């Protein structure tokens, strides 16, 4: 009976953690005053590069490292274009999404066509490395042990990143300087903060974090490449919406991920709930399944509308976001 709840909670986490990576990565970039719409593409590149390297070396660490570096390079490209060359951030971000997803298919198709091909890579030991970890004591707790304390190591890394980032913004000097740049780069500049350097570093690190989220998605699907369906599948875009939901706060991003994850899981599990508890939850079957499919996006839309209506909910938005900083204009 309770298994269905365990599975529900378990799935909320296991299928939605990539959103947390995408969201925290984007928050870091946003905080530096840059808006990167290339989350989807950055995640796709991190996913494919990290998975291949990891499968080749049979190491989850290598997979994470390469994924971080590959996406970091995409971040470097974004920084070069928007910080050094002052290109339009929106256009550059969209280009990176187009480029990243195309890169994913390009590499994937090339590999699938080669001898042996992609299937040989999938189901390698890499998946074994990313299996749920067993935490002594905690994993054995009935009900929540399986739901919360039996996940792949990357789930905990994602949460850790969010918490550390929150501390970084709130409690450290570089974090304060970063926020200053996002609010008013000219003022930060006049105080001697190296605006360009800060932007570069945080865009690269933020992109690297997104890449890990992409890698997680690839691992989640056993690395099976399929010619018309990208692993990332729109999660990059949802991440951008979650940034607004979280009010640019990495700790709130954890909450946002779980709330979105709840509705995302409900769309798959509503029938299972109704089946297990016909008397109390049987009414769920009366609602058309297409409504549940739309629900996560309806919620996203509602969140965007309410947060746009209220000033307070946007208090975390960096004032200079999306605008390039011309030192000469100061």
């Amino acid at each position, binding site marked *: 009976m309770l*298994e269905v709840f365990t599975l529900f909670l378990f799935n909320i986490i296991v299928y939605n953690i990539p959103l947390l990576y995408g969201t925290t990565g984007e928050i870091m970039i946003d905080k530096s005053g840059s808006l990167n719409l290339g989350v989807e593409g950055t995640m796709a590149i991190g996913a494919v590069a990290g998975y291949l390297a990891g499968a080749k070396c049979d190491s989850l660490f290598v997979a994470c490292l390469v994924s971080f570096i590959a996406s970091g390079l995409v971040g470097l490209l974004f920084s070069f274009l928007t910080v050094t*060359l002052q290109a339009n951030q929106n256009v550059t971000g969209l280009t990176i999404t187009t*480029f990243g997803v195309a890169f994913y298919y390009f590499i994937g198709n090339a590999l699938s066509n080669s001898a042996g091909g*992609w*299937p040989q890579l999938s189901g390698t030991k890499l998946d074994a490395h990313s299996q749920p970890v067993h935490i002594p004591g905690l994993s054995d707790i009935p009900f929540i042990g399986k739901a919360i304390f039996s996940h792949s190591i990357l789930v905990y890394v994602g949460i850790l990143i969010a918490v550390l980032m929150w501390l970084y913004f709130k409690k450290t000097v570089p974090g304060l300087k970063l926020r200053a740049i996002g609010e008013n780069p000219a003022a930060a500049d006049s105080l001697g903060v190296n605006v360009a350097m800060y932007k570069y570093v945080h865009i690269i690190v933020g992109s690297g974090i997104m890449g890990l989220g992409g890698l997680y998605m690839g691992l*989640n699907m056993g690395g099976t490449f399929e*010619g*018309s369906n990208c692993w990332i599948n729109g999660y990059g875009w949802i991440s951008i919406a979650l940034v607004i939901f979280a009010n640019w706060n990495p700790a709130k991003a954890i909450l946002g991920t779980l709330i979105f994850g709840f509705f995302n899981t409900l769309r798959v599990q509503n029938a299972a709930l109704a*089946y297990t508890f016909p008397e109390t939850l049987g009414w769920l*079957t009366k609602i058309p399944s297409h409504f549940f499919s739309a629900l996560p996006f309806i919620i996203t839309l509602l969140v965007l509308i309410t947060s746009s209506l209220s000033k307070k909910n946007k208090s975390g938005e960096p004032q200079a976001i999306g605008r390039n900083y011309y030192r000469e204009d100061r």
Partner: protein
Amino acid sequence: MKKLISMLVTAALAVTSVLAFAGCSSAKGNEGGSSASDFKVGAIYINSQNDTSGYTYAHHHGITEAMKKVGLDPAKDLFIVDNVPEDDEKVKQAIDQLAGNGCNIIFGISFGYINAMEEKAKEYPDIIFSHATGYLSNDTNFNNYFGRIYQARYLAGIAAGYKSLATGNNNIGYVSAWGTEYAETCSGINGFALGVFSVNPDAKVSVYEISTWGDQELERQAAETLIDTYGCGVIAQHCDSAQPQIVANEKGVFGCGYNSDMTKEAPNAHLAAPIWNWDAYYATAMKAAMTNPATFMTEVGNYYEGLNAGLVDVSALSSNCEPQTKEAIELAKKMMISGEWDVFSGVKLSFSGDTGSVTVEKTNAPLVTNDGTEIVAAGGPSVDDGVIQGSMNYYVEGVTQVN
């Protein structure tokens, strides 16, 4: 200066990504080379010709194989417009482009191309238009083609049925893109289920509808739900990726894939997959059109074949299959090829006996839906036309949709 460089770099990046897609939208060209004949083939695809699995891949593979069979060179004689959405204007443009290339026959592989193809068939009376999965045609140059994949699904159902007997678990799951909305998915589910029941009459088939042709995460979660909540021991599927099989493999249950032999993705789980051999149709169509286009509609006409033409089949049985499976499948196949029996008739098959002595028994029994409506009376003829005419919009007895 900075602005100039930045524009250049952005442009370069944009061009690169466009190039990455370019392979998808370009028509593969005849560079004036002289082929054995002047016959040219046109094809309109819904996805990329570079796909390595799935629907478009299966058709592209079929067309190129068929061309080699009839002595055409796909590199020279095949023109493709791919990534064409189901939008009349886009399809018409694609047809104009292929007509301009001098194609003698144009294949459109997606259902939604139907109206554009019908209209353009009137405009280009000298070109033969051939449309997959549709229901329109004319008397001179426009036909439709589809296959009896439900026959192959019935065979896969036999493999699943034996597995359920061996494991003692009567719950069988089916991850389906759509349910009763499309006769294509619905007939596949029914065909599979009847195959299961021919071996294990006590089995129950639970269908999980994901409401999209392909979404790896949903396919995965649907399979997990079927296994964890509904206790299914075999997972069949009608969706794009191999995720349901991979999940079955992870969870130590069994499965039947679709479209390709998914044993490589799920070595410990996969039993057998219903597969298409589209080249069987494409070779027939090309040969007829090359010989005499005027008689195409009488020679080929609307094409709806199955195991008999080799258009559909099951993949090689994996070592996960129960030993009786092969014999039972051979028996059922023989009856369908000879035309002696078909799946959606008022006669049901039951298999029994051990390896080496598997026998099949025919009994008259009505085909009944899961809400008790009788579709075919006991002993009545098969309603397989319902599959192409779209009137099959019910599940047979023993099938339930869980969501």
